[in-house]
């Protein structure tokens, strides 16, 4: 077997392990991955949506608030995957599994690749479920087949990027609670400080600049453009560039943390 075949085999083994884990924890994962975004969807659409929708102005492009909201909720479903990945990696780290792997002739990085792959698969399932729910409550996308493919691509790329970052966070966390807490800025704070729920123009000046130029806005804007026919501008390129940069940073960080181990 060549080194490459072995590496592929090790990654596949670790991915299969992560999928098995996800299936065993399916009920728990469904809450964080599907229920939370769905509750956010219903909360913002039915309860807060009236006022927010009236305030949208031109950003609504004549459509109800739910059309503006759903691309943001899809992005939040992607970001919601950070916590479980960080937690799973921390459990492997503190439980000694990573040390076991590090004393074996297993391809370095295979374990984390399994965690990242598992995250992408879970996110695709979760975002599909959330999108289905959105259609039920009145979301009316105007995307073509090609647009849908692009949406799936951006969702997968963004979840891939955030998963490497989450893996690194999981590796350096001292406990499961710490791992979960450290991903909260990714899963909640950054989405709120972006165009997820409202246009960034409506934000106070100081926040506006940050919100307009951070990765979550680029991702949401590109998803929104693809799904609702809003002008896409350069947001798709920006989103792809951000995904690549975050993935690379997360990958390098997690590889360094993996090599360092528990000490």
């Amino acid at each position, binding site marked *: 077997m060549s080194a490459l075949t072995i590496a592929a085999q090790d990654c596949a*083994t670790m991915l299969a392990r992560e999928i098995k884990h996800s299936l065993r924890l399916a009920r728990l994962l469904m809450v964080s991955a599907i229920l939370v975004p769905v509750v956010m969807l219903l909360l913002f659409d039915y309860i807060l949506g009236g006022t927010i929708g009236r305030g949208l102005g031109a950003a609504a492009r004549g459509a109800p608030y739910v059309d503006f909201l759903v691309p943001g909720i899809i992005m939040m479903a992607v970001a919601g995957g950070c916590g479980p990945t960080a937690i799973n990696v921390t*459990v492997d780290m503190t439980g*000694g*599994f990573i040390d076991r792997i590090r004393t074996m002739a297993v391809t370095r990085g295979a374990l984390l690749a399994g965690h990242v792959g598992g995250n992408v698969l879970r996110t695709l399932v979760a975002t599909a479920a959330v999108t289905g729910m959105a259609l039920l409550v009145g979301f009316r996308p105007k995307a073509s087949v090609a647009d849908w493919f692009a949406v799936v691509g951006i969702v997968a790329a963004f979840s891939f990027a955030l998963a490497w970052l989450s893996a690194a966070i999981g590796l350096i966390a001292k406990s499961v609670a710490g791992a979960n807490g450290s991903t909260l800025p990714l899963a909640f704070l950054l989405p709120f400080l972006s165009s997820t729920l409202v246009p960034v123009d409506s934000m106070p000046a100081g926040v506006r600049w940050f919100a307009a130029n951070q990765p979550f806005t680029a991702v949401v804007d590109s998803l929104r453009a693809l799904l609702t026919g809003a002008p896409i501008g350069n947001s798709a390129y920006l989103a792809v560039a951000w995904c690549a940069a975050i993935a690379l940073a997360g990958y390098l960080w997690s590889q360094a943390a993996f090599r360092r*181990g*528990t*000490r």
Partner: protein
Amino acid sequence: MNALTKHATRTAVLVTGLRKAYGAKVVIDDVDLEIGEGEVFALLGPNGAGKTTIVRILSTLIPADAGTAMVMSYDLRGEAGAVRGVIGVTGQFSAVDDLLTGEENLDLMGRLLHLRATERRARTTELLERFDLVEAARQTPATYSGGMKRRLDLAMTLMGRPRLIFLDEPTTGLDPRSRQTMWQIIRELVREDVTILLTTQYLEEADHLADRIAVLDHGRIVAEGTPEELKRRIPGAHMRLRFADAASLAEAARALPEGTRDDEELVLRVPNEGGIRSLRDVLARLGDDVVVEDLSIHTPDLDDVFFAVTGNASREKS
């Protein structure tokens, strides 16, 4: 040349001048080790002596600051990948996957070792039987006892037939029966010609299992030898007799001149091989008139080893 001498000439682990410090704290200080192939070697020492650090260095988990180490004739620094191919590590805390069943845990190891499907299945079945885990094979370790978890952990380590096994405190935290089972398993391993580096806090355990023992204290090896050699350096078992007053102590000391007096505690320590006969003999010589407040039999333990080899007790005597 017969098998035994050939055995003794091959070296499984050769360590010289090993050092490791975390900041200003030196954890491993100039350690040399030589372990022959097929040998069971015990690192004996209290918590914090550096046992686990040595295991972590030799099993490629952390780098040493200085020194050289050959593991199964591979250079630890330059050929870490090759070292990983021939070793197996079972740490202090069971590193099993809690969401997978016992069987799936073993299968996962088999896959990571790139065993073929037929061999993977055969080896899984064999190890489950050998470690008495057949009934629990389809359950997750959450339902296992501490001993079962440790057995599964060791079975996972053995999946790849390692030639050198590190057992880091394999019985710490186990109940006496599980400890016996673990000892039995380790003794069986020895027959399969694997080399074992074992760490333990228990002299009894090292005595039972090891061919040679190195006593570790504050990151240094303070004594090394066979269990017999070490025990010869330890003050033997003794009887501790406590008296109500100084007069009784003085009288007893006259009757038993081989004893050591402690006037402050009113205690006389009399050497004793431990048998009933010698106990009866001592009491007979003491006679009926001397009133003994308390009598206890003292057998050598790790404290005594430390006292003997370092000149100070490893921990506060209770």
